[in-house]
């Protein structure tokens, strides 16, 4: 039986102990955005609050496969405390990186590396990011 490349320790760790994942409503957050992928049944909500231009808190909730949940978890970690501009640029980099392009992304996101070889899972990775960007676009930051 071959090793399941996709399921590296860090990815599984984020799936089993997701950071900034809540069970109830995201009611304390300023902006909440839903992302769903009906093909997979992945369905999550991302919420965040801004102080000026800075994402000072971010959470998510919902259900999804390990890739979806781990990616959302890593996203919250890599964006908390960052400026909206920076976060948007990272989201754009992620999109290109996951599509196979040779661009830089924060080390914290590298455990998703193996997903780049699995086209069917790319949407799972990007779901949380898309919701976040939509949320930021909506409030014009």
């Amino acid at each position, binding site marked *: *039986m071959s090793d399941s490349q996709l399921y590296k320790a860090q990815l599984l760790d984020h799936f089993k102990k997701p950071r900034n994942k809540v069970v109830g409503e995201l009611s304390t957050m300023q902006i909440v955005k839903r992302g769903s992928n009906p093909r*997979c049944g992945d369905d999550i909500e991302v919420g965040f609050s801004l102080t000026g231009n800075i994402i000072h808190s971010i959470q998510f909730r919902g259900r999804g496969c*390990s*890739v979806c949940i781990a990616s959302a978890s890593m996203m919250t970690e890599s964006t908390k405390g960052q400026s909206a501009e920076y976060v948007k640029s990272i989201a754009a980099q992620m999109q290109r990186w996951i599509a196979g392009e040779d661009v830089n992304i924060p080390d914290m996101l590298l455990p998703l590396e193996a997903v780049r070889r699995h086209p069917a899972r790319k949407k799972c990775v990007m779901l949380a990011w898309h919701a976040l960007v939509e949320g930021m676009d909506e409030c014009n930051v």
Partner: protein
Amino acid sequence: MNSATLSKTRTDKQSNLGGRINPERVKALFPIFRNNELTRNLSYLDNAATSQKPEVVMQAMDDAMRLFHSPVNRGFYPLAEQTTTRYEQARERLKSFIGAETDTSVIFTASATDSINQVAQGFLLARLKPGQNVWVTRMEHHSNYLPWQDVCEKSGANLRIIELNSAGELDLDRHLDIFSDTTAMIALTQTSNVLGTTNDVGAICKQAKQMHIPVLIDAAQAVVSNTINVQQLGCDFLVFSAHKMFAPTGIGLLYIAPDRLDQVQPVRLGGGMVDFAADHIADTTWSEAPHRFEAGSPNLVGAVGFAAACDFVESLGQANIKTHIGELASSLYQQLSHYPNLHLVSPAKHLSSGIVSFYHDVIHAHDLAQIMGDSGVAVRAGHHCAQPLLKHLGVSSTLRISISVYNTNDDIRAVVNALEYAEKVFA
């Protein structure tokens, strides 16, 4: 056995000594299992999605292109005459495969999906009245659901759904108005692509006939392990795709009962389906059936491969196939029932379809499918294009194992091992 010793001309009958399927010998007839890094040791258990192709089917397709390819129905030279004969022989082969009355009832389409759309749009739409009911079942594939939903909404008719009982079977008794004059059409699957449940389509046709209600049967999942006889069934329409029965992609069958032929309008217009193209459609004379339903240049290569697959399936015998896949499915079901986190959704009574679906409390079906895939076990995760059913089951996806003629006990073991491994990974 050494697959290299197999010659191309070896008949399939030989792989079926004594009726029982010998999966190792059958497997040797499928080149994919000996050619490819990715497939040599693969447990291919995604057969409800699409089946692999035996040498005889590939050979038939190749011959069509290598020996007698030319236009169908259109030429006066000997090659074209032969091509037309081969194409019509393929139709004859499908006719006998489904026990049709006449070859005018046997229409080649692009797929089961295409066939159903042609019936919904070409037959039902024009006759459907506001307030009438069209019945489908809770277990339909989107292909046998969306086209009916669409024509119902266009006509102000109601799409009604035959629900399932707790045994995963049609709960016909719950709906007293199915066989009534409010029903314009019944469309149902013979075998569910998720549950594996096989419906008693014959009984439904019989009741429907008494009320002159037309019935369409989606035999996409049933055709490999059930001998189809449309006359015995008494159905009005029957459809399936070639690619799920060891035949080429891109071709399907539409059977239209003789007395319905003149009630179906051609949906696709073009070459080969019109005798006289007039200044107005009303004066245009369609060609006789089946040609008026086959607009455009016929798919010769697909039809010839399709016919070869009929030979292949019959050489193994649908009853033998059913026994074989049913035994493996039962064995798998039994083993899976020991895992507390695992919920089987396939009814134990219906395992002869070779389909075993389940979900896992902890591991998302996609993760499970991925880990299994990396372990050399090809299975399907998702909603299987049956969202109305998944909604009813209360899950967003299931894992489906679907068994075919070339699967062995080793494949079943591989599933269980991969599952154990996945549970370890996600522990």
